[in-house]
C-alpha cells in the first residue's frame, strides 16, 4: 500500500511537440473514420479577471456515439466503436483558445452508467495548476439531465455553466459546432470537481 504520487504542475515548459496537432482530431483513428455526428468543441480558458490562459493543456475523454467505452470496465465494450479513441489533447493558443474535432457522445441509460447525458470529461493542466482541474461538458437540454448523477451533484444555479452552447460561427467543417468557455476562478466560475 502506498499513497498516490504527489501531483505537480506541468509548469511553463511543457514541450509543444507533446501536444501535437493530431491529438485535437478524435474523428478518426489510424485513418479510419469514427461513427457518429462530427462536432467541433472549442472555447477559451480564462483565469481570474477573465484573463486568457495561453500555454495551457486541455485534455478530454468521452464515450463514442452510442455512449460506449472501449475499455474493460464497460460491460458493453465489445460494441464500442473500434475507430474512436475518445481521448484528445490541445494546447491553448495565444488567446487561450482550444479546439477539438470529435464525435457527439451518445446518451446512455443502463446499469453500468445510470442515465448519462451526452458529455465529455475535460481536464486542465498549466503552469500554476498544481493538481489537474476536472470538469464535464454536457450537450443538450439541462432540463433533461436531472437523472445524470454528475450533473445532479452540481448546485442547480451553476448547472447551466456545464452545457456547451451551439456556436455555428466557430466552425463550418464539422456537422455541428459548440463553444465551451472555461472560467477557472471568479463569479460564475466553471464548476470543477473535487478530484
Amino acid at each position: 500500500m502506498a499513497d498516490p504520487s504527489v501531483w505537480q504542475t506541468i509548469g511553463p515548459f511543457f514541450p509543444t511537440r507533446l501536444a501535437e496537432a493530431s491529438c485535437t482530431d478524435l474523428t478518426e483513428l489510424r485513418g479510419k473514420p469514427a461513427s457518429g455526428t462530427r462536432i467541433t468543441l472549442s472555447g477559451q480558458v480564462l483565469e481570474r479577471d477573465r484573463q486568457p490562459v495561453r500555454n495551457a493543456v486541455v485534455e478530454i475523454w468521452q464515450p463514442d456515439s452510442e455512449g460506449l467505452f472501449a475499455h474493460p470496465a464497460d460491460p458493453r465494450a465489445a460494441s464500442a466503436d473500434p475507430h474512436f479513441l475518445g481521448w484528445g489533447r490541445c494546447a491553448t493558443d495565444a488567446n487561450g483558445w482550444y479546439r477539438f474535432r470529435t464525435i457527439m457522445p451518445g446518451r446512455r441509460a443502463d446499469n453500468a452508467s445510470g442515465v448519462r447525458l451526452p458529455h465529455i470529461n475535460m481536464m486542465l493542466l498549466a503552469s500554476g495548476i498544481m493538481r489537474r482541474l476536472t470538469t464535464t461538458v454536457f450537450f443538450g437540454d439541462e432540463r433533461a439531465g436531472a437523472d445524470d448523477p454528475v450533473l445532479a451533484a452540481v448546485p442547480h444555479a451553476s448547472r447551466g455553466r456545464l452545457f456547451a452552447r451551439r456556436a455555428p460561427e466557430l466552425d463550418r467543417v464539422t456537422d455541428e459546432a459548440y463553444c465551451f468557455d472555461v472560467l477557472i476562478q471568479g463569479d460564475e466560475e466553471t464548476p470543477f470537481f473535487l478530484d
Partner: protein
Amino acid sequence: MADTVYQPYADSNQTPHRVEGYARTFTRTPDSFVERPVTLTERTGPLAVERRLAVGTADFTRTSPDGPRAQGPLMLLHGRVVDEDNNPVAGAMVEVWHANASGKYIHEDDGFNAPLDANFTGGGRVVTDADGRFTITTVKPGPYRAGPASWRAPHIHFSIIGTSWMDRMVTQVHFPGEPLNDFDMLLNAAPDGTPRESMIAHALPPRVEAGDASEFEHLFVVRGHAGGGSGG
C-alpha cells in the same frame, strides 16, 4: 472482478492548490470544488494511446542512434508505475520532459540565460512493460533560475496516462543530495515527510552494465485500489 476503488486525493499527501510565492496558483485555482460520483466515464480511459501519440526513442541524449551525445552527466532512470495496492500498470504512456544539463528547456517561453544543446531532445515518450517498468536514457538536468530570487533544483517532469480518467498523474522527480532541494519552491510545497521524500529518486549502486551512466530508480504510484497486489 470487483470495481477498482478510486478515492479523492487527500490533502495530507498532496501539494496544496495554492503555493505561497507562486502567484499563478492563486489566479488559477477555483474558489470552490464540487464532489462528484465516480461513473463509468471516470472508471475508463484511453488504452494503447500510442495509437495516437507517437512514441520515439527512450534515449534523449542524441538525435540519431549514432549521433553525438548531449553534454552533461549521462544517466539512466528506471521507473515503475503501480497502483495504490502495488499492482503494476502495464501499457501506461509515460511522457517525460526536462531541462538540459545547463538548466535550459527547449521552449520559447524559457528566458533563462543558458545555452541550448543541439544533441539533447528535451524528452519523449515511453510505454510501461508488463511489470509497469520503463527506463529512460538522458543527461542529468541542471538547476535554473525561476524567478528574481527563486531557483529550481534539478528535476524531471513526468506525465502518465494509465488506464482510467482517475489514474492520470503529472509529477516531478528530483535527485537525492542536491543542495537546492532545500530551496525548491515546488518540492517543498509537498507535505513534509513521505510525500516530499517520494518525489526524490533513489541512486543505485554503480555496476558494470551501466557503462558511463549513473543510475536512479523511482516509483510512481497512480490512484486506484484494484485489490490484490504484491506489496501488501
